[in-house]
């Protein structure tokens, strides 16, 4: 088992063995997993994949582990929902929601990356796992780490949504709430990671962890009947998910599982934290960091590590980007819930609201087969819509009171 050839610097192409390392010692560029795609092409067929269990591990040859997986055994293979009501509302022909609001077990796409990261951490022999998180990663590492018997150190910005903090505490990790924003937490964690021999999933395990995001892309293609969509809209914090979805499509083409690839990749960000979309709109590849100010806290990364590569993918594929206000995010969360019955977290509101803008501006064709990557569940960020929902009807416990109210409702 295992088709990983090694790690390679994305900037200067220097090669490294498979180790818990994440930056090139020479130029500080990020390290990326390199696979034996020729070998994978020989054995991996649509039939082989379809014969396997409905989890992300059905694509195991394209994932960077060498032994049997030990974490997230039920994660992935979330529904691809054909969103006809929403399509009609926006005026589109064929729209899909990749619904990671129901990923097992913590209801966000972070279950995918953590499944890979902790399986790899176990292979490396670590007994402690850690992460810097905007919330969803904290959940996933807390939960998967508990099941895997790891000691867990979870670093979050203290300003996170209360429901996200409580959800992580349920798994009893060591939760460290840092008085600062995510970029401050990250800077601290890189120093902690220097000093302690822990598996920091988004630091020294990052090359392996990030590969888990590809599974969302593989699933989209398989669920569309082994076709890549015309357009995909991806929420961006660090920009990692966007680059990995594009990588997944390219790999499937390279190993011959799809014939044609013409997907345009679009970035969705909140206006209060939109360094990647800014670079796209200005047509530059230099990412200027910002101080985040948005209700979409899971996307509030002002210094996006993969921003440069995300920008390159968008430019290479002929995509574009849009950014949206807090009000637009809230409206979009409600729109998705009332048209498709899917309650997404704030990042999902960002994605839908951005997609609507991109359709209206003509960047996404109304006839294009379009997929929205919805990455997390709305129950995690309930605070965002408090005061913006309809109100319940209060009645007395008798039929008369109910019917008096009913009259008002159906009038």
């Amino acid at each position, binding site marked *: 088992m295992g088709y990983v050839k090694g790690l390679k610097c994305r900037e200067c192409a220097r090669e490294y063995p498979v180790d818990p390392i994440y930056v090139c*010692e020479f130029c500080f560029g990020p390290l990326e997993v390199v696979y034996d795609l020729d070998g994978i092409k020989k054995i991996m067929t649509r039939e082989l994949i379809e014969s396997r269990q409905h989890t992300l591990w059905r694509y195991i040859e394209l994932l960077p582990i060498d032994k049997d997986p030990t974490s997230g055994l039920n994660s992935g293979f979330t529904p691809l929902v054909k969103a006809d009501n929403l399509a009609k509302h926006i005026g589109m022909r064929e729209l899909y929601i990749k619904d990671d609001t129901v990923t097992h077990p913590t209801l966000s796409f972070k279950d995918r990356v953590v499944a890979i990261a902790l399986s790899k951490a176990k292979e490396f022999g670590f007994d402690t796992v850690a992460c810097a*998180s*905007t919330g969803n990663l904290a959940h996933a590492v807390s939960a998967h780490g508990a099941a895997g018997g790891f000691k867990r150190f979870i670093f979050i910005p203290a300003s996170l949504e209360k429901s996200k903090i409580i959800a992580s505490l349920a798994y009893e990790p060591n939760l460290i709430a840092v008085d600062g924003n995510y970029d401050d937490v990250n800077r601290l964690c*890189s*120093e902690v990671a220097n000093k302690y021999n822990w598996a920091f999933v988004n630091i020294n395990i990052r090359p392996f962890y990030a590969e888990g995001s590809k599974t969302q892309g593989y699933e989209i293609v398989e669920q569309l009947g082994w076709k890549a969509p015309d357009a995909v809209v991806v929420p961006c914090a*660090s920009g*990692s998910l966007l680059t990995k979805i594009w990588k997944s499509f390219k790999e499937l083409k390279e190993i011959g599982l799809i014939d044609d690839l013409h997907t345009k990749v679009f970035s969705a960000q909140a206006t209060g934290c939109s360094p990647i979309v800014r670079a796209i709109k200005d047509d530059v590849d230099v990412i200027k960091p910002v101080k985040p100010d948005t209700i979409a806290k899971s996307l509030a990364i002002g*210094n996006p*590590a993969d921003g440069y590569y995300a920008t390159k993918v968008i430019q290479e594929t002929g995509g574009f980007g849009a950014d949206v206000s807090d009000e637009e995010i809230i409206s979009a969360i409600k729109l998705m819930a009332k048209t498709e019955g899917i309650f997404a977290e704030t990042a999902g509101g960002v994605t839908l609201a951005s997609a609507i803008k991109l359709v209206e501006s003509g960047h996404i064709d109304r006839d294009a087969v379009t997929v929205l990557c919805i990455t997390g569940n709305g129950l995690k960020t309930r605070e965002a819509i408090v005061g913006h929902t309809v109100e319940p009807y209060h009645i007395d416990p008798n039929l008369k009171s109910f019917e008096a109210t009913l009259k008002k409702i159906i009038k």
Partner: protein
Amino acid sequence: MAVKVKIPVPLQRLTQGKEEVEGNAGTIISLINSLDQKYPGLGERVSEGGKLRRFVNIYVNEEDVRFMKNEETEVKDGDEVSIVPAIAGGC
């Protein structure tokens, strides 16, 4: 008193395993160049042609230099400088 510079693991091989070294006050780029004299190779790891490399983050007293004057940001004695590789997270 000098400027304290925190060295990340990937560069500690150049500083004989030291996690923290001392440098002189002045601009960030002059600090890096003077450290390169003492620890040959450090300069080209972090910068290229007088500019910071794309994936290198430098903080002065916990503030990203890109919010100040990048490599021209001035540091004085007693300041703490951290060199940190870019880190992934979020989506």
